[in-house]
């Protein structure tokens, strides 16, 4: 798309959709504050459930490739998410997986440590506020006199967007930093040379340590791991050197190292840097290296202090990781 063409074009058509998400991503778009006006000036939202009342059938009626840009946030959890993802793919020129959930599964992705039945069991039976002795669970079709009631099918797994449809770009973050969205949006609107398809945009190539202000040294040997509340953080030294697992070195920069700035270790919502495919695995490899013991028993003892490696290293990325889910 050349710049002349975009200039000629009056306005982009923009769609924003949330799949299995907390809504934070949609809010992050609004979090652009006054810049939102610039966005709206450059683009017409044609579909945005949180903001506009447009029905699915209206979207279905749009000609293919008529939407210029779709920001799809949230993971794919059920058949409705899947359907809309596929629909928007058809109607959209540039489909962006927006936010950690769409990118790698995000927090809802932690559901992949279990399956549909366990989720239902918890949600409809076990939750403390629930009383469901008959064990009634949602069904996709329920015949009533008026006809058949339909619910979207609840998938067994949480899927990142790219496992359902072809994705053009990814903007990571939980949620993405609004400044980054503006940058990307501006780039698209300005008709600048876009990076190759499949790129992560709105984030840095280097990982968080690059921007992190804490002091770092080569002295990264760990005798015991601590959870953040277990130590008195000196607020200056690299978390890892204090024995606290920080996903910073395996996580793309771009967030502004906000968590660490707030004296909380990075949890990796920005996903892996370009050199890595599976941030959790990379981080495990690095963390493993730091264990200060050679004999198996001592190593085991040190590892004991990492309570939940899976949940820790894959907090935002389980469905998008190599294994994707717990084996069933």
């Amino acid at each position, binding site marked *: 798309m050349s710049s002349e063409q975009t200039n000629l074009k009056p306005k982009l058509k923009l769609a924003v959709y949330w799949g299995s998400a907390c809504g934070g991503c949609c809010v992050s778009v609004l979090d652009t504050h006054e810049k939102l006006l610039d966005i709206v000036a450059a683009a017409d939202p044609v579909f945005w459930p949180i903001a506009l009342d447009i029905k699915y059938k209206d979207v279905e009626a749009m000609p293919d490739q008529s939407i210029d840009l779709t920001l799809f946030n949230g993971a794919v959890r059920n*058949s409705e998410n899947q359907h809309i993802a596929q629909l928007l793919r058809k109607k959209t020129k540039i489909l962006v997986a927006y936010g950690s959930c769409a990118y790698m599964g995000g927090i809802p992705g932690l559901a992949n*440590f279990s399956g*549909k039945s366990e989720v239902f069991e918890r949600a409809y039976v076990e939750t403390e506020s629930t009383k469901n002795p008959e064990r009634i669970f949602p069904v996709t079709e329920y015949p009533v006199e008026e006809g058949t009631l339909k619910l979207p*099918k609840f*998938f*067994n*797994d949480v*899927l990142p967007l790219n*496992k359902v449809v072809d994705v053009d770009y990814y903007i990571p973050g939980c949620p993405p930093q609004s400044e980054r969205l503006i940058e990307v949006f501006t780039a698209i609107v300005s008709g600048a040379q876009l990076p190759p398809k499949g790129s992560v945009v709105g984030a840095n190539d280097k990982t968080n340590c690059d921007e992190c202000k804490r002091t770092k040294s080569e002295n990264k040997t760990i005798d015991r791991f601590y959870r953040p509340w277990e130590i008195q953080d000196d607020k200056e030294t690299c978390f890892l050197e204090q024995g606290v697992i920080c996903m910073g070195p395996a996580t793309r920069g771009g967030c502004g190292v906000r968590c660490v700035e707030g004296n909380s270790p990075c949890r990796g919502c920005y996903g892996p840097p370009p050199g*890595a*495919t*599976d941030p*959790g*695995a*990379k981080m*495990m*490899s690095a*963390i*493993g*290296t730091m*264990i200060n*013991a*050679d004999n*198996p028993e001592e*190593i*085991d003892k040190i*590892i004991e202090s*990492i309570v*939940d*490696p*899976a949940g820790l*290293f894959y907090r935002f990325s389980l469905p998008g*990781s*190599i*294994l*994707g*889910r*717990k*084996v*069933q």
Partner: protein
Amino acid sequence: MDFRPKIVAFLCNWCAYTGADLAGTSRIHYAPNIRIIRIMCSGRIEPTFILKAFQQGADGVLVCGCHPGDCHYQEGNYKCLRRFKLLQKFTRQMGIEKDRLRLEWISASEGKQFAELVNDMTKTLLSMGPSKVKSSLEVEHLNV
């Protein structure tokens, strides 16, 4: 077809790979289920590789390096051990049975031991049945 487990093995060049070669030059027969990938040092073996192997359908993954103290690169095998231990904690959390992922030390002279190891692992895997990592990831299965 009956179940033929497939093992992906990562062998360090100096000890384990040489040991596996020795099994060959000594014509010590072992189960054909193993697929060996040569790495210079067990210290180069990353969790990523192991997870990838499971993802691709491996029923077992074997990591072999030099015996402790014998590493050609001094201590790569210790690093491997540490990473392995952590990874194993993770894989068990992820529902991969412990015996599917093994780390063993094989020296350049242990052709026989290597063959025995492969046979042993193959036997264990046969009794365990196929790994479900790959099938768990298959979309048809996911969307039940």
